[in-house]
């Protein structure tokens, strides 16, 4: 039985570069037809995102991050282990994704994908409301979509 993969692009569609994950998912939706690959867009909170990946063998999460050292538009590949150092609560209403993952690891580890990869596109701290991305992030979106297309094609 082939492994089931979910690619989930995260972001806010009206917050400029923050929407990068959504745009990656939209590109891939047009290009990937494999029945073992599910592609979703999400603007939800951490619990909801973790619940989306439950039941899959592999999850690829595409999001944006702010970097103090990397320029805007770089692609960083991470695993949850890279993030565990910073498992903490930073949001009053919702928890960060790593905390949500940790809760599911503690309560139902068998339901989480055995492999979780996070692709993050770097942005700056600007969060002006806009429906357009910067050229740097838009280029990164296209590049990452190609990378993921290759990665998923190899699996499917």
């Amino acid at each position: 039985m082939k492994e089931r993969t979910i690619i989930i692009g995260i972001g806010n569609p009206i917050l400029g570069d923050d929407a990068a994950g959504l745009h990656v998912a939209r590109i891939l939706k047009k290009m990937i037809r494999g029945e073992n690959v599910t592609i979703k867009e999400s603007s939800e909170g951490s619990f909801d995102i973790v619940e989306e990946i439950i039941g899959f063998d592999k999850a690829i999460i595409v999001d944006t991050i702010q970097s103090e050292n990397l320029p805007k538009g770089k692609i960083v590949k991470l695993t949850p282990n890279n993030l565990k150092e910073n498992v903490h609560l930073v949001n009053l209403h919702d928890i960060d994704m790593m905390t949500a993952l940790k809760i599911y690891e503690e309560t139902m580890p068998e339901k989480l994908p055995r492999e979780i990869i996070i692709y993050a596109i770097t942005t700056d701290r600007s969060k002006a409301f806009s429906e357009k991305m910067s050229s740097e992030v838009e280029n990164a979106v296209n590049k990452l979509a190609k990378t993921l297309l290759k990665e998923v094609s190899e699996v499917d």
Partner: protein
Amino acid sequence: MSRFIVIEPASRLEGEAKISIFLDENGNVKDAFFQVIELRGFEQFCIGRPVEEMPRITSRICGVCSWAHHMASAKAADVIFGRDVTETARRIRELSYNAHIIYSHTIHFYVMAAADFLLSPDIFPSRRNVIGLLKERPEIVKQAFKLRLNTKRIQEIVGGKATHPTAMIPGGVSKRISLEERDEIAKLVRENLELAEKGLELFENEIYKKFKDEILAEENILRTYYVGLVDEHDCYNFYDGVIKVVDPNGKEYAKFKSHKYRDHIAEHVESWCYSKFPYLKNIGWKGFIDGAESGIYRVGPLARLNVTDDCFGEKANEHLKKMREELGNPVHHTLAFHWARLIEILDASERMLELLSDDTIIGGDILNTEGEYVGEGVGVVEAPRGLLIHHYIADENGLVKNANIIVATTCNMAAINLSVKNAAKRYIKEGKISDKVLNMVEIAFRAYDPCLACATHSLPGLMNISLTIYDSEGNVVKRLRK
């Protein structure tokens, strides 16, 4: 020489905030400021947008408060298009909105706040969280998850999506509820009702007893005005009503229709904070002080239970009586916001069962498309954290030319500053800074469930990720933050 202490960033906070505490020559607290340091101006983004798109656009202000913005915006659009919402649609809206209240309160109390009370307040904030609670009290976390998932499912059925709903449109809703869906929702709500009672049992029998001294402490009391929506029976209502104000003695001070809000509410500006400080216009801004002479008011669960005569539900009413017997009426104890939140979860469940019991809710008349275009509208709901006002003025083509959004956290911002200062005073004396100060300051402002994303209309309620990247040798190569 004065000293100052800065605690930043505030843990478990959406958006950017820092708390600055200033000490006097004797080492006592002179001032404390809860500063919001981000501003984006969402209203400007709304200019030129078609009014009918506003409910979907404004729901993106915040991933957590999306339902509240969606609903307030839809109500403003109803007025602009001159459309009276059909009875079935009104009930569907109220049903789904009560579900959202439960969803939001559940996350706040169980995932965010419960650890403050059920784990030792002496432990470091990074360990005083839901992960710690899961280890110590797994049954409580599981209870919360059940409540949350049940409510999420209801939101999906009614709203099309659990987060960022799309179902509310000018004049009604876009989707009816089938008989099967009604039955499914009712089953989930009955389960929720039992879970809500367990939550209150936990608070009244364990948390209140353990934290009574803290809850009753003078530093955790603010004698302010309270503002909330009430129906024609003077019962608070999350979805609709008139705005009622009670004074610090619990006496009705004012009652007015939502479109009159500018006659009663003004906004004070401080140079050190991007958030504004709304106050009661006819009392006036007297600075950061409480009491009947100060126009500072509070909104949210505690305010709602202070402006209401009774709860809607019989069971919730018993708990309201219990709270008033313990703390008086009105209740000025800031930490009782949590108690009020749990009462509201129960009350919302009872209200939902009542709405479901009438066949009107499965009717087919869900949208009124008739009406005379007015061009200006105010939509008001009770967001989980308090009164939310959306006010739009549109041109003759139905495009927004002016938007004003006043959110609950902004309404509470002056009171939050006071609560932070009072908590700091208690734990910093004559230069001696108690280890508890950070925890207790956090507990004080967290009671309000502040949402800085909404307050500044800045950052939507998605994840903030702070992370450190290590190379294979374990060295830090990058520090990243979202």
